[in-house]
């Protein structure tokens, strides 16, 4: 598993880090996980940009004791949360304006989706993070325990719960679809 290999070789023994090297090596990783954490295609590039600005600011202080991926994931998570809050505030203002001008509300329609990223958004944050890191990125339980500062047992518990919940969500979606066809 790639994550295991990365940890098996201390990063300090790796070639010199640079912003460009990190960007080229991990751009896709940050892009993928920003989307999984809630970025839409409309602003995922902005989120990736913000993440690497933080990286540029902190690169000198990166100790190299952990995988760059765990470091980048934590930064990505922080950036996406902040941008989501900013966007939510903006959307709230827009909605308020729309209600005032049109006299009605514009509640977004929630539709069943076969897209895993939309399913992930229905998971509680702790379970979602563990599921992404284990199932989609191949991090080891020990690596996730270090990244999230939880025990390996908690990682396993959250992973099981995440899988079960996703399976149930899918089941409910299929049941609704079947009922519509009758």
């Amino acid at each position, binding site marked *: 598993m790639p994550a295991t290999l990365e940890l098996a070789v*201390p*990063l*300090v*023994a790796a070639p*010199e*880090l*640079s*912003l*460009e090297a990190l*960007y*080229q090596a991990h*751009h*896709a990783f940050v*892009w*993928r996980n920003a*989307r999984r954490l809630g970025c839409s295609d409309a602003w995922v590039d902005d989120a990736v940009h913000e993440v*690497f*600005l933080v990286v*540029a*600011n*902190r*690169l*000198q*202080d*990166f*100790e*190299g*004791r*952990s995988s760059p991926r765990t470091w980048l*994931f*934590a*930064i990505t*998570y*922080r950036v996406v*949360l*902040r941008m989501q809050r900013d966007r939510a505030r903006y959307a709230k203002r827009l909605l308020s304006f729309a209600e005032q001008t049109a006299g009605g509300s514009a509640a977004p329609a929630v539709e069943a989706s076969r*897209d*895993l*990223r939309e*399913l992930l958004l229905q998971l509680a*944050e*702790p379970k979602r*993070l563990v599921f992404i890191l284990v*199932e*989609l990125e191949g991090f*080891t*339980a*020990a*690596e996730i*325990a*270090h990244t*999230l*500062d*939880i*025990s390996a047992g908690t990682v396993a518990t959250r992973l099981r719960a995440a*899988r079960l919940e*996703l*399976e149930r969500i*899918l089941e409910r979606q*299929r049941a609704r679809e079947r009922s519509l066809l009758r």
Partner: protein
Amino acid sequence: MTNSPELERLMRAERAESPAPGTAERGFERLSRAIATGAVPVALSAVAAPAAGKTLLVQAATALLIGASGAGVAVTAWYAVEQPSAPEPARIGPRRAPEPSPRSDLAPSAALSAAPEAALPPAPRPSARSGASAAAGSTTGGASSLQAELEILRQAKGALDAGDAATASARLEQHAREFPGGALRLEREALRVLARCASDRVAGAGRARAFLNANPGSPLVDRVRRACGLDGEAKIEK
């Protein structure tokens, strides 16, 4: 593994997702320009804004240090991190040492929504650096270190352009003391060479050759060659 073939299929599809071709290249150029122009919170605002019409070098993250003479010099910041002198293995243990901070665990979703940043998986932070590495790096620490580095080098460059080699050297020594493994150490070395060549071109030529040999890919190669009178050698080498 899950018990749902459909979930497995969705996971495989998600793992295969990747950015469109060219996204990384465009993104890095955008990042480089943003950093170079100081238009973003990388704290480069202390650096003089690039004059209109100056060419931006965006080979990497580029910082423009504009000299007092207005001639301008484009200095590429590679933001490289010097490897720690005392390598330590990656920490792979399931638990980190107990921390007094209550934010050490990923909280339940309710707590997350109330204070999401407090529940954030903590990134490796500057504060966790060892005393030795902290002493070997920035004295300002954190996000301001790059700005501090740039400010010192900007002063060195300004002195150099003003013909004040002594001040330039002093600033460069200051940078070397405070940021021995700084992100801009290559820029520091390049400015040292330029300062040396400005005061004694013959003596500086040796240092310039050493710099050129060690950093053949540096965007400062041409400038060092010109300033140190090595243009002819460059042609001969080619």
